[in-house]
């Protein structure tokens, strides 16, 4: 096995799936000669040609909507939205159309498409290159929503997403693209959608997270261990459907719960995790469920000081864990 970055793992997953299945194709702004702004499709147009690697006009509604039509025809499009902040024009096609077609046709239509969307902050991207959009997607039945944190998960989950017969929104935290490296097996393997992963075993507190924050959570858990607190870190990996069994098993085991995500705390995925635990593991809790994440600002500000104030980091998460441990 070789150590690879998240973006290399994503590129490898698409490359292998396109070689294995001629129905798989990619489309989006700059995905051709440029190879994508993050180079996820570098070299694809040379190998697969312009019919399967389509540089689209800069028009997100049609990138998503044309993918819906391709999927109706039985192809398996992978659409790239360049930054999560640019997906708003595509909302109608993803939330209003792709998610409902199977249900609305009483099962006659399927939409086997993947929409890859780089998201998240920490790269000084300002209000329009930093958002976490999973809360909006999480609210939509008919969609599957994936947020890998590691290269290994990214490859296995993207392959599963491409083979899935539903619209899958694949959220890639852009700061993990090159900052996170890890072992990735060569060749084919799948990580099933809807299965969380306990990234670190612990007995005192359960810490649920995903994406970039999952790495900050692991760092915070390592610090707390030195202070005599054992923290279990659960990487949700798939946000829709959530892995309720793993969430409940961990909460029942430790009795204390912290949920950390970069997206806005209010109305975020953490609220649902908290509700699941409150409903089905209440008797096991030794402390109120605690959430930590994005403040109630409409986006991530540009200046480094403001961005740092918005973002989570190991210090903030460690502080929240200490507070919970002391309860």
């Amino acid at each position: 096995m070789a150590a690879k970055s998240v973006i290399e793992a994503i590129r490898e997953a698409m490359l292998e799936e396109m070689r294995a299945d001629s129905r798989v194709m990619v489309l989006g702004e700059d995905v051709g000669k440029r190879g994508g702004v993050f180079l996820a499709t570098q070299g694809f147009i040379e190998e697969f040609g312009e019919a399967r690697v389509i540089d689209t006009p800069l028009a997100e509604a049609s990138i998503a909507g044309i993918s819906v039509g391709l999927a109706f025809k039985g192809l398996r499009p992978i659409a790239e939205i360049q930054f999560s902040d640019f997906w708003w024009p595509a909302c109608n096609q993803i939330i209003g159309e792709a998610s409902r077609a199977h249900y609305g046709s009483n099962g006659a239509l399927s939409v086997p498409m993947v929409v890859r969307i780089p998201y998240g902050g920490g790269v000084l991207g300002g209000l329009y290159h930093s958002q976490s959009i999973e809360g909006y997607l999480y609210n939509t039945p008919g969609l599957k929503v994936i947020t890998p944190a590691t290269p290994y998960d990214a490859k296995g989950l993207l392959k599963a997403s491409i083979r899935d017969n539903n619209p899958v929104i694949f959220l890639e935290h852009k700061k993990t693209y090159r900052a996170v490296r890890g072992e990735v097996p060569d060749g084919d393997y799948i990580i099933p959608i809807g299965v969380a992963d306990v990234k670190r075993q612990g007995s005192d507190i359960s810490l649920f997270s995903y994406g970039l924050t999952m790495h900050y959570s692991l760092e915070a858990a390592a610090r707390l261990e030195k202070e005599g607190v054992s923290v279990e870190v659960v990487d949700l990996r798939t946000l829709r459907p959530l892995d309720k069994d793993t969430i409940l098993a961990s909460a029942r085991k430790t009795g204390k719960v912290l949920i950390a995500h970069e997206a806005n705390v209010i109305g975020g995925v953490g609220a649902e995790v908290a509700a699941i635990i409150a409903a089905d593991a209440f008797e096991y809790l030794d402390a109120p469920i605690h959430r930590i994440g994005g403040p109630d600002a409409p986006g991530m500000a540009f200046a480094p000081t403001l961005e740092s104030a918005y973002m989570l980091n190991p210090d903030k998460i460690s502080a929240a864990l200490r507070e919970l441990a002391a309860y």
Partner: protein
Amino acid sequence: MAQLKERPATSHSASLPHHDLSVSDSQMLELYSKMVLARGLDERLWALNRQGKVPLLASCQGLESASVGNAFAALQEGGCFFFSYYRELPLRLMLGLSPLDIMVAHYGKAADAFNAGRQFLFQGYSPKHPIIINSNVVGSSLCHATGYALGCKTLGEDTVVLVSFGDGGSSEGEAHEAMNFAGIHKLPIVFICYNNKLAISVPQRKQMAIDNLADRAPGYGFPGYSIDGMDILSVIKHTREAIQRARSKDGGPTLLEFKVERLKPHTSDDDDRKYRTPEELDLVRRRDPLPIFRSYLLEHGVITDEQDRLIQAQVKEKIDQATEAAEKEPWPDPSTLLNHVYSP
């Protein structure tokens, strides 16, 4: 271009305008029967709506000739796939839906061929016919149709996609994005706008600064034609040519604008007297495609008054039977509510 109203009455001969387009007398009669059936069903649905039995109706009255002519051309050319708009009841009859199918779709009964009572009338997918209409968000289906046409081209299929929409839908950004993309890739698709000059209550002059929507086509790099939708022969001719162009080696999309009228309000929930004057409605009714077509058939000796009465009587009987049968159809089982949220 064939023009119904400018043709003199002639004897039954090979030089009749429809013969010039290789449409036989019996085919003309069949098209007329379908128009009469569509109108009859539509009128019955209004009555059922007022009785509280059919929750909603989006009337087809005024576009029967354009819809029937368009479908006829597509069926003759063959290999077409339809992303159709909500008013096209006549197209659905042409593609083989029965009066009972039409009725159960409006009731929302379990037997609905498109969605089994999940959506408004005709929305969903009927593979047998084959039509997709997936949304009440007008304009969005142009992107789906464009993607579908791209898929056909990618797979090397000969299919031509026909996507229809209203003048209101043409204002949506997705309509522009779809036509722009289709033009770039020279896709096998025909964009069909039924322009009745009203988006619910908003008149065309407030929707666009041009008289003919077809004028937009050159901006996307393909031809556009503005056609009188009451002239069924012109509709047939242009649809045929557009399908052939879509299929030809250096072809690609065409935008067809069928100028039609809306004889009824936007839907059964609307009251058009709030925004249309009696004079305007009177003018609109004078362009009713049914009397125009009937006059043509009578003038050219394709039909007699007696045959016409027979067709009307047969249609009424079919509609009575379909109404009675639809009433007896079961409602969807509530236990199916959460079926098909996700594909296996």
